[in-house]
């Protein structure tokens, strides 16, 4: 404890960064997953559907840590090219933004598949019933289709949240001072890495435990009125 206490603010800052990156990237991944699944099922243009398949295939083929580096470096090069083209000053891609976007983009690809399956499992009659009740397409989607799809997708969503957390432990490779980086730094400074790395371990374990509770509650919540799927 004596070794830990002077470095507590550093560790707390790291945990905050990790929580911010993971929650924001998960929200982004969910948005990509839901929008992408709808686009894959509904998009008229063949090009759009083909691009979505390419996107999910690429992400499934590349390790997370390589994809994070690739998106970070790639977006910086893109920014350089754009600023050169427009003649404006140099733009630096912030690592935090790159971290959130890259992890979100990676898990968005997995969630597209999840939500595609969930949407496919909902009987056509549900959409038709919503229309017959006079709901607009949009309202029908948000009030009728999506809640049922979420019920189907929840177990997979928990699995991917868990996997996303393990990927968020890698964002230090693009220079974010998250809980892992700060733990290693404090460990190097004191010559005693074990307490700090174990603190990081306990932090992740706590998040795992809490998210298990949260998803259990969500599953019960979304099961209300579920009965047997007809």
């Amino acid at each position, binding site marked *: 404890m004596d070794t830990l206490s002077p470095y507590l603010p550093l560790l707390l800052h790291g945990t905050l960064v990790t929580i911010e990156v993971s929650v924001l990237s998960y929200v982004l991944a969910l948005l990509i997953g839901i929008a992408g699944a709808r686009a894959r099922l509904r998009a008229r243009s063949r090009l759009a559907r083909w691009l979505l398949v390419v996107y999910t295939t690429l992400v499934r*083929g590349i390790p997370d*840590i390589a994809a994070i*580096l690739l998106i970070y470096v790639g977006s910086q090069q893109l920014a350089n090219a754009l600023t050169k083209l427009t003649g404006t000053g140099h733009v630096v891609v912030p690592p935090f933004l790159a971290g959130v976007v890259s992890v979100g983009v990676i898990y968005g690809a997995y969630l597209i598949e999840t939500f595609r399956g969930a949407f496919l499992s909902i009987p056509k009659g549900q959409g038709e019933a919503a229309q017959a009740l006079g709901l607009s397409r949009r309202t029908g989607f948000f009030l009728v289709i999506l809640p049922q799809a979420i019920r189907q997708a929840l177990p997979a969503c928990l699995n991917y949240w868990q996997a996303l957390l393990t990927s968020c432990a890698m964002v230090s490779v693009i220079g974010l001072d998250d809980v*892992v980086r700060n733990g290693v730094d404090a460990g190097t400074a004191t010559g005693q*890495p074990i307490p700090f*790395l174990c603190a990081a*371990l306990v932090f992740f374990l706590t998040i*795992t*435990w809490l998210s298990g509770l949260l998803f259990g509650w969500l599953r019960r919540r979304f099961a209300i009125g579920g009965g047997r799927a007809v």
Partner: protein
Amino acid sequence: MRFDLIAQSLGLFAQGLVMTLELTIVPILMGVLIAVPCALALYRNVRIVSPALRAFCYLICGTPLMVQLLIVYFGLAQLDFIRTSWAWAILRDPWWCAVIAFSINAAAYWIALLSGAISETPRGQHEAAAALGLTRRQATWLVVLPATFLRILPQIGNEIVLVMHASALASVVTLQDLLGVARTFNVRHYLSLDGLVVAAILYIALTFTIVGVFARVERRYLAFLSPP
């Protein structure tokens, strides 16, 4: 893209590919070796051992491999009784650190996968084994385990891809795996993207080779499940 430099460095990327394969195959095999007895113990609900195994799986699956790897790599060096023991000759080498961390991690996922699949063995298979006069050990090794591995064949492919992707973390502990050589290549030639793109292409090729091989194996060995 500097294709000329990439062409000159093909040997480097080949070395990285070899190390990535090592860091995939060794942890997969070690993981299975550890997991089979553990999964059997979990299935038989051995006292003390089974709850301990469940806690082990929760700990390993609930925390990032990155932190586990750093604990093996940085953490164990802090302990004097390890630095003075024979094990230090092994733990000094980052390759062994990576292999140990990846194997333990793979073992936890294997245990979860195997114990679930073993408990799904149809009752009739146990009864058939008993009717044939097999002992419990014979039934386990000749009936239950082969059938279990056959049943989880599709997940085995996924598991191997996951371990292969996880092996990219090795570059964090200075190892020259595929991602490691890509970063070395970039540093050496003052580039930022090119090496990563080459590594990404090779990772994709590797992933879809594994996926393709398992699709063939499944067609061959799970043919009895496909509709006529």
